[in-house]
């Protein structure tokens, strides 16, 4: 039985008539890498700000580590490391000094060794004595991750952690998230608009739109649900198209090129289609079913819109 770590119930945040978060329910278990997905303006950052008590909810409850956030704010925040949107620091201080100050306020015994350790993890050890005002956005992002890890929190909340990073930096952060969950048994709450990032790292996820959860579940279950994008590669595209159009699957055709037909279909329909084409002696070089989170994300958020 998974141990609940974050329990959000009927959360609302209203700014006048605008409902940034509108009855959101979430359940994150210990050890999850939990993907928090949604288009811009869906209410992701507002939700994270409420989880970190930066913003007061209009109504609803937030429990983290089994404790109510309103009455146990400090006990909860002591066990959370977070990046919220942009990683901003005191630009007139060095990276090390920033971490020292943040560490002291975190209530943990943060030593020089632990600061060096987290700076090493994010690849900033050589710039520890540089003032943050000389840092690029990507370096600030890495420093943001360092401060989130500094006091060895049980829950790590990352809001768009790879924004501004180069491809290698993105891979490094992705690997770090996986390592934190697998080797250090941390729970990671990962908000991102980069869908492959969530697809590659998260174990569970929720997609929200207009302040509401649209779907929640294990990433693999969600990937396997619904229709697949199937690419059928053949040297005889026109004849294959003619055959398919004569079947009930005609409406599933999405597009075609010189060498391939792309269709959206149920997993169970694939075998029948392949057999039908093979019977007609259509040479098939490949049939590739892909369940992309991106497709799913777009279909869900468009449906709601």
């Amino acid at each position, binding site marked *: 039985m998974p141990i609940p770590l974050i329990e959000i119930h009927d959360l609302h945040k209203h700014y006048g008539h605008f409902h940034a978060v509108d009855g959101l329910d979430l359940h994150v278990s210990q050890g999850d890498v939990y993907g928090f997905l949604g288009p811009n303006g869906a209410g992701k950052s507002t939700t994270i700000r409420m989880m970190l008590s930066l913003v007061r909810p209009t109504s609803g409850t937030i429990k983290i580590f089994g404790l109510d956030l309103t009455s146990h704010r400090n006990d909860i*925040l002591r066990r959370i490391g977070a990046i919220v949107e942009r990683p901003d620091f005191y630009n007139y201080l060095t990276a090390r000094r920033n971490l020292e100050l943040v560490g002291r306020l975190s209530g943990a015994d943060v030593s020089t060794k632990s600061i060096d350790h987290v700076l090493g993890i994010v690849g900033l050890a050589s710039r520890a004595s540089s003032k943050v005002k000389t840092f690029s956005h990507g370096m600030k992002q890495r420093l943001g991750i360092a401060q989130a890890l500094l006091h060895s929190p049980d829950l790590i909340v990352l809001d768009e952690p790879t924004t501004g990073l180069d491809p290698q930096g993105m891979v490094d952060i992705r690997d770090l998230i996986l390592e934190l969950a697998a080797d250090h048994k941390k729970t990671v709450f990962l908000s991102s608009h980069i869908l492959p990032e969530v697809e590659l790292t998260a174990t569970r996820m929720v997609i929200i739109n207009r302040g509401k959860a649209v779907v929640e579940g294990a990433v693999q279950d969600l990937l396997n649900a619904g229709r697949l994008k199937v690419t059928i590669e053949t040297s005889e595209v026109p004849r294959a198209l003619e055959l398919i159009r004569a079947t009930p699957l005609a409406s599933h055709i999405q597009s075609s090129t010189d060498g391939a037909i792309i269709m959206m279909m149920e997993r169970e329909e694939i075998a029948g289609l392949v057999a039908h084409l093979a019977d007609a002696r259509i040479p098939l070089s490949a049939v590739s079913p892909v369940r992309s989170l991106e497709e799913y994300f777009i279909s869900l958020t468009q449906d709601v819109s």
Partner: protein
Amino acid sequence: MIGTAYRVELSKVFSKWRTFIGFIALGVLIPVVVAAMGIEGGQYLGFATQALKQTFDFTGNLMNGYTVSYIIFGSLYVHVPFLVTLVAGEILAGEATAGTYRLLLTRPLSRATMVSAKFLATLTYTNLLVIFMALMSLGLGIALLGTGEVVVIRSQITIIAENDLWWRFVLAYGFAAMAMTTVASVAFLFSSLVENAIGPIMTTMAIIIVMTIISAIDIPIFDYLRPLFFTNHMNGWKFLFDDPVNWTKVSISAGVLLAHIAGCYTATQIIMRRKDILT
């Protein structure tokens, strides 16, 4: 936890260049004024006592370190509030501008503690500025011009003996610290309302100017407001150079200033408690 938060805030305040503007300004200005007073102070004092000299004889070292300090105290009092607001107006709004509220308020630290730590850091800066001003003007004045009596010319002429001056200066600088803390508290309050440090600095100075102007206009309707303005009580230190000291007036002025400090601090706490951090 407030001790840690206070030390962190102090560390931040004294890592910024703007914090030292006030010290540099006073460090340059006071020696210049003391030197000028040493060179031409006799003329200045002669002009101030011109009418009195027809009736009285003045003997002794009247242009001494105490007199210079008294004059500097009276004149710089107008400018020091601006130096105070440079730090006080920025201490909360600066976090909003830099986006570091998110860094600060996601720590296991209540907002009330954070506000108190910042307020204490502001008070520390303000009081250090006043102490610096006192040490510079008294120390440099006495070192260059020696000691002597102070002639205080207000509604009546008071000549205060040398051995009767120290405690008055100590109390006067204490009063000045309270007055500057009031200015800092007002800037601190405005700093909690906005996301740019320029706003609190300008607004606080505008309030001081408007209140000073209203206080100077002799219209009966303002008589009800005037006693409530903190600007009207900031120069309450002057009563400490009356003989005998008018303790009632000193106490009333001190009370009004303290009420402003408490009011601004409480209002800031309430605002910060309710504030959504959106920057």
